[in-house]
């Protein structure tokens, strides 16, 4: 050994090896094309991938599943760095405007004929993923709203427990707030809603405009009565301590579901799985689903995109098209409760007849299909993602008792304006 490293050339070679070995190459040897598909959370794609690989022997699919934050941070970094991005990438509707601004970094799916598929989707869903003839993404699921509620708590509070009776009890959010008062009077230990933020978001998702005017994208949060109404109603619940003040998907939220900390939550279809996971066996059969106050509204839902960096855009597009085709959307709903964004699928008899045992055998197919039919899309605006958090935080300040509703409202509208740059 000592002799070996005495010569400068040998030492240089060692140094070079040390440096080179840290880099590696990633080509498959057997001539197969490898496509990576990046999603945040499980999209239920595993069995679909297996089938696709069987039907297309030249294709191998690798799945990259991360959580929401990691997924979008990684995507931004990969787009910025110009390498490392997956062939097919899922983008959530709220993040979509950000990526539409840099649409040149993605393949225009219209180049591969995506424009002809247009009629598959609900018109607003299709419109969300396109801009000036540029088709950025193909719609996967959507998040039409329903209301999940705890049957057992409603019974203890002397309220009706039957789905239709509950829906009839609170057709509007004002009625919802009224019922919250009755509920708290009887069962003071259980909170009525999970957080002011959830109620607020659900209400906001039912109005055509939120923080920005659909006409010219100007900031209207301080003038738009829908924003104000939603804020004051949700803030009122927070101020009177009728919310559990747990942020959705945090560990505290999971614990609150497991321990029964709150009685109702506005739930898009994809949330049912998360409630099941958080609640586990203990709460099985205690939850039920009915239509949401205000009847519909969209919350969440994603698109599959093909970034330009990928080496196989044609194959990636084919895969994305297949994954979002009606047969696959139907399969995903029946297996994982992922709500289709295509009318012919959510009106399919088998989908409409679908029930969920965990939620007291609620006819979730019928409920979500009805909600989807009533759904009016809302205009988001380019800077929605900058402004939205300010209002959420303002509601948080009411929940932690540091502000009144009026103070929080004044702050939120002000900071919302500041957040636009």
């Amino acid at each position: 050994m000592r002799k070996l490293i005495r010569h400068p050339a040998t030492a240089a070679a060692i140094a070079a090896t040390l440096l080179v070995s840290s880099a590696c190459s990633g080509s498959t040897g057997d001539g197969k094309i490898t496509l990576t598909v990046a999603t945040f959370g499980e999209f239920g794609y595993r069995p679909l991938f297996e089938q696709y690989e069987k039907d297309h022997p030249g294709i191998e699919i690798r799945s990259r599943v991360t959580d929401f934050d990691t997924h979008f941070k990684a995507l931004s970094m990969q787009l910025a760095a110009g390498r490392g991005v997956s062939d097919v990438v899922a983008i959530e509707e709220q993040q979509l405007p950000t990526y539409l601004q840099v649409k040149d970094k993605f393949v225009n799916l219209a180049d591969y004929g995506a424009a002809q598929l247009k009629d598959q989707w609900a018109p607003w869903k299709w419109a969300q993923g396109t801009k000036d003839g540029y088709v950025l993404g193909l719609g996967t699921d959507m998040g039409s709203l329903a209301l999940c509620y705890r049957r057992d708590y409603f019974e203890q509070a002397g309220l009706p427990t039957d789905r239709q009776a509950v829906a009839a009890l609170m057709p509007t959010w004002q009625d919802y707030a009224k019922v919250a008062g009755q509920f708290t009077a009887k069962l003071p230990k259980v909170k009525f809603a999970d957080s002011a933020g959830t109620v607020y978001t659900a209400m906001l998702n039912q109005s055509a405009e939120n923080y920005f005017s659909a006409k010219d994208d100007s900031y209207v949060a301080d003038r738009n009565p829908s924003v104000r109404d939603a804020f004051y109603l949700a803030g009122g619940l927070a101020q009177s301590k009728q919310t559990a003040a747990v942020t959705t998907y945090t560990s505290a939220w999971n614990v609150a579901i497991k321990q029964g900390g709150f009685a109702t939550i506005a739930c898009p279809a994809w949330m049912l799985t998360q409630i099941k996971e958080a609640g586990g066996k203990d709460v099985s059969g205690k939850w039920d689903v009915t239509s949401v106050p205000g009847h519909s509204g969209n919350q969440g839902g994603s698109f599959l995109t093909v970034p330009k960096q990928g080496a196989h855009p044609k194959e990636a597009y084919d895969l994305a098209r297949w994954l979002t085709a009606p047969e696959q959307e139907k399969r995903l709903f029946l297996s994982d409760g992922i709500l289709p964004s295509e009318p012919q699928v959510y009106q399919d008899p088998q989908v409409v007849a679908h029930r969920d045992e965990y939620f007291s055998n609620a006819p979730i197919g019928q409920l979500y299909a009805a909600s989807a039919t009533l759904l009016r899309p809302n205009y988001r605006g380019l800077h929605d993602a900058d402004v939205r958090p300010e209002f959420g935080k303002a509601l948080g300040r009411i929940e932690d008792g540091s502000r009144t509703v009026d103070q929080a409202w004044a702050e939120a509208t002000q900071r919302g304006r500041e957040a636009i740059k």
Partner: protein
Amino acid sequence: MNTRGTFGTRLDRKVTPFLFIAPFFAIFAVFGAFPLLYTAWVSLHDWGLLEGDRGRFGFANYAELFGDGRFYNALANTIGIFLLAAVPEFFLALGIAALLNRKLRASTWWQTGVLLPNVVSVVAVGLVFTQLYSRDFGVVNEVLGWFGVSPVNWQAGRWTSHLAVASMVMWRWVGYNALIYLAAMQAVPQELYEAAELDGASHWRTFWSVTVPGIRPAIAFTVVAGTVNGLQLFAEPQLFDPGGGGTGGNDRQFQTLAMYLYEKGFTKFDAGYAAALSWVTFLICVVFAIFNYRLVRRFVSAS
């Protein structure tokens, strides 16, 4: 018998050592110097994370930064948490090291135990502490409840959130510092202790007049390293944030400099501003490290 020429041997002697240390400098150039300079370049532009250079050159990012209230808020939070964590950490570590320096049974066991919190992943520490400090279901509030204290919403207040985050930092670093002090203490010459004993000095007096000055270099090292770590504090407060938006609570009550950098760069995609922020943070680190080093030198005299 020397078959090789003397020139070759001389060259070998001169060049080989440099080649041996070359990998370090090569790696430093790639992962240290280049990012530093590139960041400086980016900070002078209006640079979007996704779009890249948006065509403006100058000190606009720095000008904006020094007029930005959120920057000063983050700076104050960072220093606040640093002081809350560092001062008790320093004394606790000294105390633990002094205890370990006595003749103990199973001393290796104790020493390993003290270091354990530092080996645990910071993410695990963050998650566990966040659970402990949970408002409704947390152990800390449960225990406070036994003494009649009503539940504290730790994230909501400035001081409560700083205390909670500081406790995580302490948990991770006390043992590590204690072990460094211990190693230094074992190198303090035994004669000094014997002399102190002959002079009739108390344990307490011996500790402050012999042990602490004796480990001055170790203290200086931990202070400088601790300062740099403390000013870059990120993972603990980030994980402690229930919303996860990186703003450190609804009112940015515990947003540190690194979190603000992350928010600007990776949530708002303003890479130019984030780069300026990281350079300013770097300079603050340097200034603080020098200041603290001097502070230690002055108060722990080597007499």
